[in-house]
């Protein structure tokens, strides 16, 4: 059973990395959101599996949040936003997709090198999971810095956060995981619905962060 448990967890975490890389590759917002939904669902699966393996029923809550909130609600909300704003046509990555992919690969490699060397004695499950989680985190960050559009950045941030949840659930017996995942969900909701759309649209009529940048302090 441990073997199977490990394999499935490994597979799910690995696919998360893969999906992260896929997200980097997307250059249209609707597609990006779809891929992100897949990402969230995979995370939900992974967390559910961990809940099962670790026999920690409260992790199912986290899994459910990942599935319902991030896999369904947020993508829907985002899609509505981009369609209403008419920016669903395309997104402009700052650097070319090829280069971004290459950088993504390098980051995954870096994550592996750092993590696998790091934990020789840790359980393989935790170790592999951590390596993947770090990869997902780094890829999410890369996504944030390579997208000019705020929606893209939010998606990047959410995938970063997925990596965190992956790591947290991979850590056997870690307390407060559910609370953290709830807190993060609220944070994201905060970003997406509360401050972001309400205030930014109220003032700027667009969600392109570059417009915001015109109001950086001190520029005459």
């Amino acid at each position, binding site marked *: 059973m441990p073997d199977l448990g490990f394999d499935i967890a490994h597979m799910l975490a690995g696919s998360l990395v893969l999906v992260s890389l896929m997200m980097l590759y997307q250059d249209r917002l609707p597609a990006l959101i779809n891929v992100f939904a897949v990402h969230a669902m995979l995370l939900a699966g992974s967390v559910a599996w961990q809940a099962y393996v670790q026999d920690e029923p409260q992790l199912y809550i986290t899994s459910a949040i990942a599935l319902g909130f991030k896999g369904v609600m947020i993508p829907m909300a985002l899609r509505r936003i981009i369609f209403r704003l008419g920016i669903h046509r395309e997104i402009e990555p700052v650097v070319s997709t090829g280069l971004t992919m290459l950088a993504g690969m390098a980051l995954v490699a870096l994550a592996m090198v*750092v*993590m696998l*060397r*790091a*934990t*020789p*004695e*840790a*359980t393989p499950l*935790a170790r592999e999971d*951590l390596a993947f*989680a*770090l990869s997902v*985190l780094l890829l999410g*960050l890369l996504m*944030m810095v390579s997208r000019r559009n705020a929606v893209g*950045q939010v998606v990047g*941030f959410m995938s*970063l*956060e997925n*990596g*965190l949840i992956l*790591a*947290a659930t991979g*850590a*056997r*017996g*870690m*307390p*407060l995981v559910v*609370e*953290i995942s709830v*807190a993060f969900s609220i*944070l994201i909701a905060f*970003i997406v619905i509360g*401050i972001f759309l309400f*205030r*930014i649209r109220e*003032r700027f009529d667009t969600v392109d962060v570059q417009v*915001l*940048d015109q*109001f*950086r*302090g*001190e520029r*005459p």
Partner: protein
Amino acid sequence: MNLSVSLILIFAIPAGAAAVLALVPGYRLSSRINMFASLMTLAAGVSLFFIPAHTDNYLLLDDLNIVFIVLNSFVGFTTSVFSASYITHELDTGRLTPAYLRFYHAMYQVMMFGMNLALIANNIGLMWVAIELATLATILMVGIYRTHEALEAAWKYFILGSVGIGFALFGTILVYMAAQPVVGEGLPAMVWSVLVARAGDFDPALLNIAFIFLLLGYGTKVGLAPLHAWLPDAHAEGPTPISAVLSGLLLNVALYAVLRFKMLLAANTGALAPGPLMMAMGLLSLIFAAFMLYRRRDIKRMFAYSSIEHMGIIVFAFGFGGPLANFAGLLQMTMHSLAKSAIFFAVGHIAQAKGTQRIAEIRGLTASHPVLGWALVLGVVAIAGMPPLGVFMSEFLVVSSTFARESWLAIPLVFGLLVAFGALMLRLNGLAFGEAAGSTAKVKASYLPMFGHLALVLAAGVYLPPALVLWFQHVAGMLG
């Protein structure tokens, strides 16, 4: 009454006050409640001196965090006094509405709650939650004026802060992962006092990665370059009491978290020494901020950069380590909190009197507003490290202890100090001296917090009470 209850009180009072303030409509009353609650928190903080050290799975009281808590509640209290007179003016000029003020006061206490909880938490998860709560509260406060600039600053703060939150959480998870095989699953593996006791058995490599994430995550809050970007704008665009609290308190709380994890790493012989990383980031922040001071046009933004500079020095000192440098770091931190918040108090009134924050439009303050002007001079002189004010002593100790052990490291340090000094004095020259420009209208200011802080800084520059010295020395020894 059992004084141990003040362990709870220091965060329970702000939490309760926040709830009350959210319900009280009148701003005069709420500013009084705010002051009163802050004073009570301060009293609770001071009473911590009289109770024995405490450790359980959630709360921790040792000599290190008492220093932070007392400083925190003290500046929190004085800022609430300043805030009371400051906010009235904002209401008069219509920059804030009573509704927003209600929100402001509630958030003020939420922030104090978060910071005090973070300081007293023994659980690294709880600490994380508390710091993020405080951060979120300040983000809301920064955006409270709802001008383009304020929203932009808040947004920037929010995004960068969220990434920092993520990093810190990842670091926390990694620490748990490192502890879990040794301590066992569950709560104890997140209890700092347990962790530090058994850190020697942890997997060092995992701790290394954890520390990098924690340093970057909490370092974002400390304002270390190159993670500092949110800091100047948040200081410049938010209400001045919040700028004072940010510089005087929040940075310290984040620094406290870094220090706790540094101690954890130091307890593991196999892990990398956290010192060099901190020193490098400290020096980078110092020199970078020193250069950034020159081109500033906004007075609050300039002092925000000066905060980055000082946090650089402090982080450098703690990174350098050893009883002397740690002592110097603690002293520098205390002095910086007091002096910088005093400067922000002065700057707040100055900006109100002149109706602008632009440095170019504020001139000849010592002529037009002598008391505020000289207070600003005194504050800047203090923050620039001139005697007989306290920062001079701490910088003396930082530089000389560095020079004694690693002479070459003192050169960039001294260089950064000098460059920053040049910038501060250059701006002070224009701000405080010359023909007065702009409005010379009297401003109703509360001088007490400002001069209270400066008097403390002055006294500390000449005489440190032996009890305080012993305390700091003990803490410096703890920090290793």
